[in-house]
């Protein structure tokens, strides 16, 4: 009976109009249910922040990063949060280029890399233990991960108000099946590489088209940005040659 009344109360918010977090119906309902108050979204660097309705990464969510610039985008997404004092755990990306993380603006003193066992249960137990201390987790899930365990991990992420960024690592050819029910899907594809030509110069900049959609996103947003983001520590060098458009 009570549930039905609550459901009736929620329904108006499920319309097309985007719900602002931290105000209005949702907050009201949360206080009634005694749920933990929502914490402010984690900050995101300027060019990427415009892709999110809330202006940042909403805590408790799972973000799936795909596309050929998935890892760079995931690092760029977590950069501002680590600068603000959050810790970043990178799980199962043994070949992570730390220099790239620094260029993306990640505070390197707050990166921890973890290599949990590949078996589904142990993997989830380890990541769930990390969630206790880390606000942002970039994970490359193993192929053995079951949907059940993935769901369990997402529940933990929600309870601890962390952000889980699932990246698709390039095996150059195939895409890994994603067992996570992601709240947001971030697709980052490189559209142009600047600086490289037949034998000369080198890559100075990449232009990436980022598309954010998903079940927690009322309308897909798309933007073209350059990586590394201009706000990060290394400013992109001016490029004289025309970009190599793919």
């Amino acid at each position, binding site marked *: 009976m009570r549930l039905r009344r609550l459901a009736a109360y929620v329904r108006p918010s499920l319309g097309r109009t985007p719900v602002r977090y931290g105000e209005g119906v949702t907050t009201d309902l949360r206080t009634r249910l005694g749920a933990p108050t929502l914490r402010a979204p984690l900050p995101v660097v300027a060019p990427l922040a415009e892709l999110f309705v809330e202006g940042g990464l909403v805590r408790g969510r799972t973000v799936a990063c795909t596309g050929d610039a998935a890892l760079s985008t995931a690092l760029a997404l977590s950069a501002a949060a680590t600068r603000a004092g959050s810790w970043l755990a990178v799980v199962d990306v043994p070949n992570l*280029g730390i*220099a*790239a993380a620094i260029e993306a603006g990640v505070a*390197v003193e707050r990166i921890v*890399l973890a290599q949990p066992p590949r078996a589904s249960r142990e993997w989830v137990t380890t990541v769930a233990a990390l969630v*206790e201390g880390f606000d942002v987790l970039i994970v490359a899930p193993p192929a053995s991960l079951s949907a059940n365990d993935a769901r369990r991990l997402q529940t933990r992420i929600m309870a601890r108000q962390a952000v889980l960024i699932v990246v698709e690592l390039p095996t150059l050819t195939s895409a890994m099946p994603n067992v996570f029910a992601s709240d947001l899907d971030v697709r980052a594809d490189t559209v142009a590489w600047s600086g490289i030509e*037949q034998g000369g110069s080198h890559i100075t900049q*990449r232009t990436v088209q980022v598309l954010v959609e998903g079940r927690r996103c009322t309308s897909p947003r798309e933007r073209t940005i350059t990586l590394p983001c201009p706000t990060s520590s290394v400013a992109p060098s001016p490029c004289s040659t025309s970009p190599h458009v793919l």
Partner: protein
Amino acid sequence: MPDIVGRAVAMLDVPTRVVVVQFPHWSSFALTLGRSARSAFEPVVRAVVAHAPLVEVTAPGVIVFATRGPSRYVGGDQPLAALIHSSVASAVGALFGVGIADGRLAAGIASHHALRAGEPVVVPANESSRWLATAPVRALVDCVEVIGAVGAGVPGADDVASYRDVVSLLERLGLYRFGDVAALDEAHLVARFGAFGRDLSRLSRGLDRHPPLVGEPPPDRVCLLQFDGPVESRDTVVDAAEKLASQLIDHLAAQGMAMVRLHVVIESDHGERSERMWYRSDGFSARAVIESLRWQLDAWILHDAPTSGVVMVRLSPEQLVVNTGRQSALWGGERDGDRHAQRAVRRVADMNGADSVTVPAWRGDRDPARTFQFVRSDAVDLERRTAGDAVDLATGQWRGALPSPAPSLVFDVAADAPQVRVLDALGRSVMVDARHAMSADPVSVCIDDDIYDVIAWAGPWPVEERWWDSRRARRAVRLQLLVRQRDDRRGDASPVRAVTSRAIVVVLERRTWRLAALYA
């Protein structure tokens, strides 16, 4: 009456005669052994402990202990130094020096002299301050571990870098030797360097950094942790001690004191003991106490293999200093988030082994995969970690390293980098001659039976390392490639987005191309 007190303080304010055993490049040596700096150092500690039961391991690579007991036992400082030198030399094959002098700084500098001389250096008793007066102030930089960090008085997170700043300033002021600094009024040094000026003045005069505390020592300083039965699990011991340590630190802080030396004794049910001294020039935090205890426990369990569980842990502060507020400057940055992260890391390390959780640390190399090394998380104090532990790329980038932007996935060419084939238009493998000229332009790349067309390329960039050493010399050539997978299935109506195009870096070494990096 004040005169009596003054004289008493002056009598107390005599530096202890100490032995310093110092390995200047310990962490890089440990790396060549493939072990963490701490665990690799344990055999050295054991070699020294055989002759001097109570030693202080300040950092991996530095051992300090008082000469008084051991030197009387073996019949003087000279024989003691020779004994320590020979037993350490037989334990490990790294460069080291043994120095004996009054006070930590003089002994530290003596150990550096010993390193160059290849035999121990003993400064005669009561002559250290005169000996020190002729030593260059530059030597401060070599003794960071022995005398401790500069502290909050001088800006700069990195300890060695801030000592360099101090030394360069002193030299620009025309003060080249410790004697010149000692001749100055302490007040002038304090005015120029802040709180560190006082320490600098004391050090230059051959005294220890911290003046002794006078006054009645409160009786309740020693913390004793006794278990009802022998405890086998290391974590239980550490968890129990954690509460005790924070009580001890809080208790001292409430009295306006900080602890710089800590004596830790662990005893098993069968009476086996492990005791060690620990030193932190900036004062112990509760975490630092626990970190020391863990280190000692690990070493004890691994090397002595005690036959029963732990029944007793004793933490006794050996040297207290007036808490000058330096702590708040250093620890003020600590947040709840840092503590939570540290705890989570420790839990995961206990679950899957300490090797499974690592933190990056700058090493410096041309190879993108070797620019940073991954240090076991238990070997670093995460709460004290600063960005200085990983040098920023602007100052730390090596010549010949990959240009910015950096690839987000890197593969160790010497270890696990996948093999690839780089082919020219005729399908022959592209080769590079001695003058770094390619046999032909690269046209396609084969990775795992998949063929990629080369859209653009940059290079070749030669990598020549250690050409002066024929055994360790390395010649390689790098190419940056922009590739797109060759579309064999023309019938598929694949959307434009599905075309995977990637930037990669391939390395040719010993006639084999390998995938070195990937811009993901």
